[in-house]
């Protein structure tokens, strides 16, 4: 494996909650884009972006669907920013058992933002004419080596905890599972 640095494009959506008017066009267009066939239906409950919205407390948080998680967090966070209290999990991207966000309403399957692959920019950004959502692209150099190092550090800690034999057993079992 070479140590050569690799370049990758990192897309960041910058969210300015102060600019959000709470219109939920982002939810609407997201659900339309991901409909089958494309644009054939609208249903914000299927959107991979949600505006956590509580107008009387002036809370407007557009949040994107991230990874699915099987378990809810043991402890939850509640933020207070400039005197405004945000609901617990308001800023969390996970599709998780503790809330209804980011799940297909019919099947309960988790949803995840894919940045509208194939489009020049995510459509939520395109439809947010007040610029509460803005996309930024930058190139980052990454060393492949790093991942390998991370993996080894992780494995080492597992080996310390469970012993190397158990780790090897588990790896063998997992690889068998993959073959089936």
């Amino acid at each position, binding site marked *: 494996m070479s140590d050569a640095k690799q370049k990758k494009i990192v897309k960041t959506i910058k969210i300015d909650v102060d600019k959000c008017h709470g219109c939920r066009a982002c939810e609407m*267009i997201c659900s339309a884009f991901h409909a089958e066939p494309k*644009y054939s239906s609208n249903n*914000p409950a299927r959107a991979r972006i949600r505006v956590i919205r509580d*107008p*009387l407390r002036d809370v407007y948080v557009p949040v994107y669907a991230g990874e699915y998680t099987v378990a809810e967090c043991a402890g939850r966070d509640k933020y207070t920013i400039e005197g405004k209290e945000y609901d617990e999990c308001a800023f969390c991207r996970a599709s998780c058992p503790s809330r209804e966000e980011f799940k297909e309403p019919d099947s309960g399957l988790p949803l995840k933002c894919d940045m509208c692959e194939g489009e020049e920019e995510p459509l939520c950004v395109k439809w947010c004419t007040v610029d509460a959502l803005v996309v930024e692209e930058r190139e980052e150099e990454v060393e492949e080596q790093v991942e390998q190092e991370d993996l080894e550090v992780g494995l080492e800690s597992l080996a310390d905890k469970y012993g190397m034999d158990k780790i090897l057993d588990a790896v063998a079992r997992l690889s068998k599972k993959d073959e089936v």
Partner: protein
Amino acid sequence: MRYAETGFNLEIDLSRGNIERVATDPRDTELYLGGLGTNAKILWDRVPPDIDAFSPENLLIFGTGLLCGTAATGCNRTIVTTISPQTKLMAFSMMGGYWAPELKYAGYDKVILRGKSPDLVYLWINNDKVEIRDASHLQGKGAIETAELIKKELKQPKAQVSAIGLAGENRVFYASIEQGRSSASRGGIGAVMGDKGVKAIAVRGTQDINVARPAEYMELCYEVLDYIKWREDNPIPGVIPILAILGSPQEMAIHNEQWHTENFSWGNARLRRKGFWTEEVSDEWLETMNKARTRLISCYNCPVACGASISMPGLPTYMMKCFTKLTYTMAAMSNLDFGLTIAQRATEYGVDGYSTPQVMAFALELLENGILTHKDFPEMPEDNEGRFFYLLDKIVNREGIGDILANGTHWAAKEIGNGADAYAHNNIKKHEQLPLKLSMLNPIYFLMYCTGEKMNITQIEGQFPQAPFPKKEHREKFVKDWFQVPDDKFKQYFLDWELRGENSNPYYPTPEIACDIVDWQERMHYIDDALGMCAGLSSFHLKPPYHIHNIPKFLSAGAGFDMDEDKLSQAAKRYRTLVRAINIRRGLRRKDEKPPEDHWKKRFPELEKELLDTYYNYKGWNEEGIPTEASLHELGLDFVGQDLIQRGILTAGEDTLSKEASEVKETN
């Protein structure tokens, strides 16, 4: 499959506690589109003229626009239809916000309430699950407070709630239905909701709304969105600020209120306050607004933020839009600080921001002129602000004189007598109007005031400039990119319209031209009201994103039936005529179709008669304003013709008045 609509209405019988999901006839959608159109059809079919507002047989219909819930920007309106306790005619007030799309996603196009609940209840519509729930703990609560409490007890922060406050519960004739960001305020529909014993309707929906030809539909949506952005950067020169930019209108964002404050006869006045807008007032108002306004806010799927959240020190936050900013402030001859403070209480009570301050000013005028006495206002404070708060409380609680005032200026004047009539000077069809007192008769506005059945000038005007541009080169520039006109002749009408001389008010526009202009303006509003489009992006504005040329395409691609400009105009004419027929059956006649006596100083009885005659004829109505048998036939409304003949309102085979109907009947 049904497109754009769900194809189902929710029918709720409150007397029996029965709930049904009823499939609708797709042919009605093609004939009456949706929203106001299909609401009117239901009202015609099911509410005969002898049923009054507070009869259990009156219906209260919450209709979503046909395109609500689709990707069409700004298409989010709920059209609430019933019989008004105040006008005794059909009321169809509307609200934006989030409720209509949510109901569509829950799987329904309309909620139709009939009967009366013995106890105060609220409705909880959660997709297929619909419940009538006890609301005794919400009795007397504010409309905004109620919505918050319901969302909390249901643990449904995403539910959208339409609710009434104390005014609706107490059947105040100008009670509104509030929906946080928006309200349906005109015609006293909140009183009907209160009479039915329904405190609120909460909705949550997570189902799909489909469109027929997705790619084509999206292309249309993008055209509109791009045009909205373009218009934002290219305001129309030469008109007042709210008309230069899109919005419904943008009273929360725009600070310069010189035009409105100085050109309206606020409260119940007959005079304008020239010179009101001084630098001092301007500075003070700017400071008040900047402190109070926490954020500009939008309705569902609309980038134009016409509303704002308002937080006054020590008071709960509420949301405001449009003219409520000015109506209380100016009626009490006070400042914006007072206006924003009393509006908080008025919003929780759920009252119309147009009628309420006018009724209060009317009451104080009666006191000043000795028609009412201090005995009628026990313990009323001395200062204007205090008096307005006092009167608001009395009216909403229907206490003492408040019980009479709660019926609006027309009915209050009748009950008070003793010359009070002369002070109820600003009504059309028994309903308080925008307080404008002008000089020279404007033929276009004359017709709109007379024949408008939405009872509010802002709900019929738009598209065509309100006044001529003084300079020819400005007119020429204006018409250059005016592609929204249905026909190029409208450009010529505007080019020829001058401030002074032969081609000026009142004789130009001529009656024939005025008919064309009024009909176009009204048609666009009726189309919006069926589709759920906000007038702030459409019919209310000059050069709007939605117009007669692109709306048919939205319908074809969205709802999946063939539509073109002629067919759309014909459909709008069909349900517009049906609205008229409903009101005709309830007694509306030519004698009711007149602006307030003092609306214009310079009046022209002969010209006014000619204008109305020409317009009635243009619309296919006889000289009493009744749609003729032939024009009803042409619209496929033979069943209406037969009904009117049976009732002796029309005579078969005759396109003029029947003998019975020509006798002037007093309806009040």
